[in-house]
């Protein structure tokens, strides 16, 4: 087991080294100036500067706060609404067209308005994140709730379970795999939302750092900003995957129990 883990890490490091070598090769062969394509060395040097003066961590923390708050808000609203839509055909008929339409509204176009409505601080960025994560989580909630087998519902009814018991003991566990799938997608999308919000009006955050790099023609800074956003999104995805493994352990255990 440990050996397999070590070889996986080794493979990942090898592929990263190959990627860096390819990148450096393109810079050498193409003879590109740093403002078009900086070398990995130039980007690593910029990364070192930003780590040394603490600014990368500062901006990453700002974006992370916006992402987590936006993801929380979006998840709360989407799961509540999703639950309602899954259980009420009337609500679905009334609201579904608006929900689908909301997905086709480009967030980039709405973001400046959100800044006017909710101010230039944290709230407008949180709302942008929430809007962007809303749809995938809502859809997954509806799918998850509807995936609960009718027999199990009948069983809960036969056992005279209360509504809360049905939700907590049947619907949530049954819908959790799909819900967590939505959260994994939502977590990465929330990072995009935070960057969109920061692009409109901000003086901090990784989106701001990216914009600063663009405005100052500091391409290595742009690369560091993109890299930091990728790491942030991957970390969030990884955290969700971990949560999925922990929360759904019971499924694996019960299935293996059945197999035995």
């Amino acid at each position: 087991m440990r050996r397999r883990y070590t070889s996986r890490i080794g493979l990942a490091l090898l592929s990263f080294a190959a990627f860096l070598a390819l990148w450096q090769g393109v810079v050498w062969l193409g003879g590109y100036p740093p403002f078009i394509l900086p070398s990995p060395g130039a980007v690593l040097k910029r990364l070192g500067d930003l780590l040394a003066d603490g600014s990368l961590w500062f901006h990453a923390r700002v974006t992370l706060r916006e992402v987590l708050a936006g993801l929380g808000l979006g998840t709360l609203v989407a799961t509540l609404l999703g639950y309602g839509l899954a259980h009420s055909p009337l609500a679905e008929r009334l609201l579904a067209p608006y929900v689908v339409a909301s997905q086709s509204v480009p967030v980039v176009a709405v973001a400046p308005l959100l800044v006017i409505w909710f101010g230039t601080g944290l709230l407008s960025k949180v709302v942008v994140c929430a809007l962007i994560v809303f749809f995938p989580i809502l859809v997954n909630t509806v799918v998850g709730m509807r995936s609960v087998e009718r027999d199990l519902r009948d069983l809960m009814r036969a056992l005279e379970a209360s509504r809360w018991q049905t939700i907590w003991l049947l619907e949530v566990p049954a819908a959790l795999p799909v819900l967590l799938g939505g959260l994994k997608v939502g977590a990465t999308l929330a990072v995009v939302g935070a960057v969109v919000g920061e692009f409109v009006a901000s003086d901090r955050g990784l989106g701001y750092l990216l914009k600063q790099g663009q405005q100052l023609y500091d391409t290595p800074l742009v690369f560091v900003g993109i890299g930091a956003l990728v790491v942030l999104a991957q970390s969030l995805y990884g955290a969700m995957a971990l949560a999925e493994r922990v929360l759904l352990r019971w499924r694996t255990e019960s299935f293996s129990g059945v197999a035995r």
Partner: protein
Amino acid sequence: MKRGFVLFVIPLLVGLVGCYCPVRPAPEPTHVRLPMGFVANVQFAPWYVAVERGYFAAEGIELEFDYSWETDGVRLVGAGETPFAIASGDQVLLARAQGLPVVTIVNWFRRFPVAVVALEESGIQGPQDLAGRKVGIPETFGASYIGWRALAAVVGLEENDVSLEVIGYTQLANLTEGRVDAAVVYANNEPVQLAQAGYDTVLVSVADYATLVSNGLITNEKTLRERPELVRAFVRAFLRGLADTLDDPDGAFEVCRKYVEGLDENETVQRAVLETTILYWQGEPLGWSDPAAWQETEEVVLEAGLLSSPVEAEKAFTNDCLP
């Protein structure tokens, strides 16, 4: 008989030779895609006038407008992908600091158009009154920030004297909703819109306190070196359009109708925007760069921390391409 033969055959031969000799075709016009740095707007009137009146065509240039971002235009020119773009002086200095060989060849805006605007009811009457107030600014870089830093330095406002808030390009809403006491704007745009909407405003123009370089036409060092005739032709055509616009703003506004969406519905405001903007272009000779303004711009950019070391401002511009 012989004479008749000669009279018949020679014109025939001349005619035939004439038919076979290739007629020299008119030279193909040089196609130039010009990154404008902003959306189609009456502020680009001199360009529209120059195209519509055939000044570019007369120089053998076919001009296409590209309404992309200013920084993208600077990058394209720096990389040699396109020969010209419109960009402000501070952008040229910042780009040169990163190795982009861009040079300003026409100093289009002779007065720096950034200003601080406040509603009259705020009690702000001059830059000193900004102390202790909340001032909205679009970004912490770019021309607005450079203008703000220059103004603050001249009037002695320290960083902690003012609560500076980044509000993006939502100055009008934030100002009229009372979320900020004043906002950094383009003097030829937002104040005009506020006035047209019936607000009484106080305007503090950066140009009254500092001489900075604003929007101009840029090229790259390679084009300047290898295609000087194209550069001069391009500059000549643009300056003719600029001169025409200054002489006849009404005529220029009519030309803009073809290029700017929604001009008819918003005519009063847009006409006022053009009339105000024209004041920022005036100055003889047209397009001339003031070396002192470049030095001052470099000092402000350095002081603002956007440049870490000097970039030889004298290499960032040339007046040699002006007619």
